[in-house]
């Protein structure tokens, strides 16, 4: 699986990407289509646009940190190979 870095991607492009996936953003946080902040289900914090990970498994949106990614792999297996 290819891993696409979002580090250098513009805010506008990230918002368009989210929109294509059925989400939105207020410019700081990732929001659901209904406008609710998307919460990282593993560390239970709102996901910020500038630190997000979008992973397969329907669409799993997480904060970019080792605890969330390890928890994700525990749940979904090592899908990144």
């Amino acid at each position, binding site marked *: 699986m290819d891993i696409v870095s979002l580090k250098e991607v*513009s805010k506008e492009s990230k918002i368009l990407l989210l929109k294509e996936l059925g989400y939105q953003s207020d410019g700081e946080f990732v929001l659901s289509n209904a406008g609710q902040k998307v919460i990282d289900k593993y560390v239970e914090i709102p996901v910020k646009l500038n630190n997000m990970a979008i992973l397969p498994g329907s669409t799993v949106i997480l904060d970019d940190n*080792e605890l969330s990614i390890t928890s994700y792999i525990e749940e979904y297996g090592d899908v990144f190979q």
Partner: protein
Amino acid sequence: MSSNNFNSDIIEATTKGVLEWSADRISNLVKSFKERKLAFIKEPKTIEIVREQYNSGESKFYQIYIKNKQLLLLVRIGLALRRLEKEDEKRQNLRDKLFNKYKIEGLHIAELVENGVLSRYVGILIEKLISIEDLEKEIENFLTNIEKHTLFIQWTSKKIEIIKKATIKINSNSPHIFVISGVKSAGNILKECVDDLRYIFKEYEMERITGEKEILFFIRKMPEKY
């Protein structure tokens, strides 16, 4: 999406400062994402670090003996903490998230793995030639009751407090193995307590790992025959 396209994106981004994606490009990326051919993340290095630790020999070893999924997750996070040893900001961020989610016990379990305490603890158990079943039980009991079996020294700790806390924990719980750990300045404070602790805990053999990290293992001696 191929890796080559991704690399060209990086070059473009580096040149322009910020990478702009066209609507077509985004549609193609989303198509590949839905086919599970790619994932997005701010820092791909996060995934690299996690996978490296997840697939390491040490992780695979613990996977055999730790059946509790939450404990195993914390152990794996400990391996990630060790990997982030020289990246203070990322390491502190991970510690904060760990503490917020799993409280002090979760943080302590991960720190024991990070500092190599768990691997030495398992080594001591193996030297005692206990059965595989007992090894599993001992590791899980140690991790589940981490606060009964360990004392983590803070840089603010006082020598008298350390001795008092260690005495209370050992007398209350009579652990087979008790670990006292201090890192950096906390390790220096612990170094000053070593002689007193060795004198107080006569029923235990002491094993010491010293250096930047000061780690003391107190292993209960076989009672003498009367």
